[in-house]
C-alpha cells in the first residue's frame, strides 16, 4: 500500500514534468508545477507515516504551503504585473522536446536500475523518476527562452533532488531541509525581481536577448 502510493505520486510528478514540456501557456505550466508539488508533499507525508519520521510532516506541510501555494501565486502575480501572458517560445518545438525528454527519461530510468533495492522495494522507481525529472528540468532550462519557465525548471530540479532525499535516503538533518526550503523561496523571490529587471530593460522575458548586453 505504502509502496503503491509512493510509486503513484512519483509517477504523477513525472507526468506533470512531462506535461510541462508539452505546455506552451505560462499559467498552465505554473499550475502543473503546483500539482507536482502536491505529489511531492504526498510522498513526504507517506514516508512520514510509514517510516515514522515525524519531522517529514513539517516538510510535507512546508511543501504544500510554499511550493504548491505561495510560489505559484507569486509567479502568477509576476506574470500579471509584467503583462506577458504570451506563450513560451522554445528553441526546440514541442514534439522534438518531447522526444528528447523521452530519451532523457529512458536514460534516467536505465541508470536507476543499477541502484540496490531499498527496504520498501520502491527506491528503484523513485530514483528513476527523480533522475528523469532532474534531466528534464535541466533540459527545460536550456531550451526555454522565457525567464519564468526557467524558474519553473529550476524548481523542478529542486523537487527531483528533494524526492530522492525524502524517498530513498534516511533523510537529511531537519535544519538542512528547512534551510533548503527557505533557499528555494528566496531564490524564487530574487529571480522574480530579476525577471522584472529583464522586462524593464528589454521589454520582453526572452533571456536570449541578454547576450546583446555589452559593456
Amino acid at each position: 500500500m505504502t509502496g503503491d502510493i509512493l510509486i503513484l505520486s512519483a509517477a504523477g510528478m513525472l507526468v506533470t514534468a512531462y506535461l510541462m514540456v508539452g505546455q506552451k501557456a505560462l499559467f498552465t505550466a505554473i499550475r502543473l508545477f503546483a500539482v507536482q508539488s502536491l505529489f511531492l508533499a504526498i510522498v513526504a507525508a507517506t514516508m512520514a507515516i510509514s517510516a515514522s519520521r515525524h519531522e517529514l510532516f513539517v516538510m510535507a506541510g512546508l511543501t504544500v504551503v510554499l511550493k504548491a501555494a505561495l510560489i505559484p501565486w507569486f509567479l502568477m502575480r509576476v506574470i500579471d504585473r509584467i503583462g506577458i501572458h504570451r506563450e513560451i517560445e522554445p528553441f526546440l518545438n514541442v514534439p522534438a522536446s518531447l522526444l528528447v525528454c523521452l530519451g532523457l527519461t529512458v536514460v534516467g530510468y536505465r541508470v536507476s536500475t543499477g541502484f540496490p533495492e531499498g527496504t520498501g522495494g520502491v527506491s528503484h522507481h523513485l530514483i528513476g523518476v527523480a533522475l528523469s525529472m532532474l534531466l528534464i528540468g535541466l533540459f527545460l532550462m536550456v531550451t526555454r527562452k522565457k525567464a519564468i519557465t526557467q524558474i519553473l525548471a529550476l524548481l523542478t530540479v529542486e523537487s527531483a533532488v528533494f524526492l530522492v532525499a525524502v524517498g530513498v535516503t534516511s533523510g537529511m538533518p531537519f535544519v538542512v531541509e528547512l534551510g533548503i526550503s527557505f533557499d528555494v523561496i528566496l531564490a524564487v523571490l530574487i529571480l522574480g525581481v530579476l525577471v522584472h529587471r529583464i522586462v524593464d530593460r528589454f521589454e520582453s522575458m526572452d533571456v536570449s536577448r541578454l547576450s546583446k548586453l555589452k559593456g
Partner: protein
Amino acid sequence: MNQAVLVALGGVLQTLGLLAAAPLLKTAIRRMKARLQNRQGPPWRQGYYDLAKLLRKEPVRSETASWIYVAGPRVYFSAAVAATTLVPVVAAAAPLESAGGILLLVGTLALGRFALATAALDTGSPFGGMGASRDMTIAALAEPALMLGLFTSALAAGSLNLGVLVRSLLQHGVSFHPADLLAFAGLFIIVIAETGRIPVDNPATHLELTMIHEAMVLEYAGPDLALVEWASGVKELLYLTLLIDLLIPAGMATSAAPGALLLGAAAWAGKIAILAVAVTVTESVNAKLRLFRVPELVSVSLGLGFLALAIRFL
C-alpha cells in the same frame, strides 16, 4: 452447452446495457458541466428524448448523396456495437474475447471512423470534407497513442486479449508500476481527443472554424444523426470502460454468481461516474485549443505512451 448460452446471454445483456447507458453518460456530463457554470442543465432523460425525437423524424438526404452516405452512420454504429463485445465491462471476461483482443478493438473502431469520414466526403460539401480531414489528422496520431497505452498493460499481463489481460491483473492484485500512471495519463488525453471533448473539439458548438466531429456529421438529419450520436455515446462509454479495465479493474466479477455480477455492475458504474467527473472538470477548466495545437497535445500523449512502454521494459 449451458456455458455457451450463458456467455451469449451475457454478451447481449452487456451490449444492450452499454447502448442504454450511453445517452445517460452524455446527459450526466452535460448536467455536471452546466452545474459548474451555475446553470440548471438538462433533465436526466434528455439524452433519451433527443434520440427518440431524431429517430421519429424523416431522414433528409442530399440529392447527390450515394449509398456511401447512407451506409456511413450504419457502419459507424455497428462498429461501435461490435466493439462493445470485445471489452470486459461487469465481469472479467469479454463476450467475444475469443474473436480477438486489443488490435481487433482498435481496428473495429478505425473501421467506423473510416466509414463516417468517407460518408462525410460523399456529398461533396466543403464542411464534410473539412471535418473528415480534421478528424483523420487527429485520429492518425491518436490511434498509435491508444495502442501504445494499451500495449503497456498488455506487456504486464503477457496477453493482447482484453479478457485474459483483466483476469491476470485481478489475479496479481493491485500493484502499481510508474508506467501505469504514464499510460493512464496518455490514454486519458486520447479519450478526450477521440470523444471530441473540449481541449480538442467542442461538442456544443457549430461554429465553422472550430468544429471537427460536428463538421463531419453536419449534413445528417433524423435517424441517421441519431445513429451517429448514439454511437458516439457508446464509444465514449467504451473508452472510459477501457481505462477502468486496464488500470483499476478491482471489483469486477470473476464468477457468474448474481451477487458478484451485481457488485461488478455497481463498481463499474461508480468508476464510470468518477471518470465522468474527471472528464467534466477537464472540459470546464480548459480552453479549446487552436486546431494546429491539437497535434501537439496528442503527441504529448503519444510520448507518454512510448515512455510508459519503455519504462515497463527497464
